[in-house]
């Protein structure tokens, strides 16, 4: 007897090193973010000007009290890093979810109805792609006043293009299949066809795009914070930590290497998971 589909899928997931690595790192970061109050050795906001810019533990001048050293205000770097994971994950998931709703709606409508509706959707996508994202996000954040919610909203409203492009073409492929015609023949409403027949069948693709957009949102939040118009201080956003450390990077390089490496690692893990998921769910699309 051949193994069941579930067993095959499990075998494929566990046989896939990149998915395993990606998922493990993401789960670890998630666990750290959730357990931040118990894991952080110090208060991430507590300043101690007598303890400024202490090097991390692997440096000869470092100590175990501050494993990753301290920043220019004497705040414990490890604790700030741990709390910063919350910001990255929160921005990544919520902005990606928001853009998923916008992009999927546009893509499914354009792909299913075709004709003028599709022309309109394509036009909206083209227009969005022509907007310089970072510049617009910065300008809006500067005007409204930057905060965590504003950053999430701005990114969610700007990053839906890939969702729309991918769902549009996926829907086009699905819409002429027999089972859609069958659903229409038994009198299903259009809304039912879109939500119950089409959406679940393009869910695989959506999942892959979601990981890419989440990575993108995390990088953009860090970029906005780095340029001073994202998450306002004293919040420990990783991008903001790099910005605040920039002045001191010549003599205390760890103030930028540590938060940057954390950002790099998290985004890499999300991308690995996404690439792996694509391999598993749609091996034919491998480039």
């Amino acid at each position, binding site marked *: 007897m051949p193994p069941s589909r579930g067993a095959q899928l499990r075998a494929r997931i566990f046989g896939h090193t990149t998915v395993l690595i990606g998922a493990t790192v993401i789960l670890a970061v998630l666990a750290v973010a959730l357990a931040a109050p118990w894991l952080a050795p110090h208060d991430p906001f507590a300043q101690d000007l007598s303890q400024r810019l202490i090097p991390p533990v692997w440096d000869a001048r470092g100590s175990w009290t501050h494993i990753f050293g301290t920043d220019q205000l004497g705040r414990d770097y490890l604790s700030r890093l741990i709390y910063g994971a919350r910001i990255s994950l929160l921005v990544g998931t919520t902005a990606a979810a928001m853009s998923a709703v916008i992009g999927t709606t546009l893509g499914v409508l354009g792909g299913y109805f075709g004709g003028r509706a599709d022309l309109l959707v394509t*036009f909206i996508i*083209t*227009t969005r*792609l*022509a*907007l*310089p*994202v*970072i*510049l*617009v996000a*910065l*300008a*809006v954040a*500067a*005007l*409204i*006043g930057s905060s965590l919610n504003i950053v999430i909203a701005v990114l969610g409203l700007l990053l839906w293009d890939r969702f729309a492009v991918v769902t549009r073409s996926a829907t086009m492929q699905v819409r002429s299949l027999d089972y859609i015609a069958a659903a229409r023949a038994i009198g299903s409403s259009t809304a039912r066809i879109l939500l119950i027949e089409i959406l679940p069948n393009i869910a695989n693709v959506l999942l892959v795009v979601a990981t890419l957009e989440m*990575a993108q949102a995390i*990088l953009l939040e*860090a*970029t906005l914070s*780095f*340029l*001073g*118009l994202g998450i306002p201080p004293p919040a420990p956003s990783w*991008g903001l930590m*790099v910005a605040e450390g*920039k002045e001191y*990077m*010549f003599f205390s*390089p760890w103030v*930028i*290497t540590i938060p*940057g490496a954390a*950002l*790099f690692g998290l*985004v*890499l893990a999300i*991308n*690995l998971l996404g*690439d792996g998921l694509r391999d598993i769910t749609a091996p034919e699309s491998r*480039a």
Partner: protein
Amino acid sequence: MLAYCAKRTIVALLVALTVSVISFALLHLSGDLAQALAGPSATAADVAQVREAYGLDRPIVVQYGDWIARAVRGDFGESFFLKVPVGELIADRLPVTLTLGICALVFALALSLPLGVAAAVKPNSWLDRLALGLSVLGQALPSFWFALILIIMFGLKLRWLPVSGSSTWQHFVLPAIALGYYATPAFMRLTRAGMLEVLASDYIRTARAKGLRTMSVLFKHALRNAIIPVVAVAAVQFGFMLGGSIVIESVFSLHGVGYLGWEAISRADFPVVQAIVLILACIYVLLTLLADMLNAVLDPRIRVR
């Protein structure tokens, strides 16, 4: 062909117009410009005075009509902060950004084309894996952080290259790498996929059977056809690079359009911000239009779609 070009041009104009409406509306509706301009300590009377002086008390539709009518003639108004025409400011800074963009594009292509070809010639070889690994790593690298690491490594530790300013060509090396690496994964994947397809085709077999040298087959016969999709994507990526230059220019203190935009945003100089958003968007629209037409010339099948 003519009909296709006309249709694409009309769509491009419409996109540019829509972008102008959106960017204008975004900046005028997401906050009070007069308040931002007058500063946080201004009294209500000051704000009202600013509002009147800059014509911000007029209906937004009138303001937009006035702005776009001047903008199409190249008049973007006067900078709130520097009191000089915005057009001149941007014309001053655009060469730096375009130079940076072109250098970044050249770097990205110089790195990704040979790697893409090598990866396609021997799929699953160590070179192929290296190329794939580089592209996966590259996509996860935050550009501002990569730029700072380059500064520490090559500017401070090794002292090979200058890290800020734009007076010599050396000043553009690190910024071009920091900006260009982001486009390499896309180029590399496209080149690899295109080469794999072309190398399997009959005319390549013929060329090989004729006894042509491998290099000649790869670069003269195969790459030329495999590169078509790369050309289109290169145009689009160049547009993205101009948009991304704001980050790189601010890290390297390159006084280009991106840096100008960042400065303008931080001092609420909105005529400048608006003009930059519009100009960058128009450049992007123009580039995609050119890419579409180039594709239509190279591949006649596209024209009838």
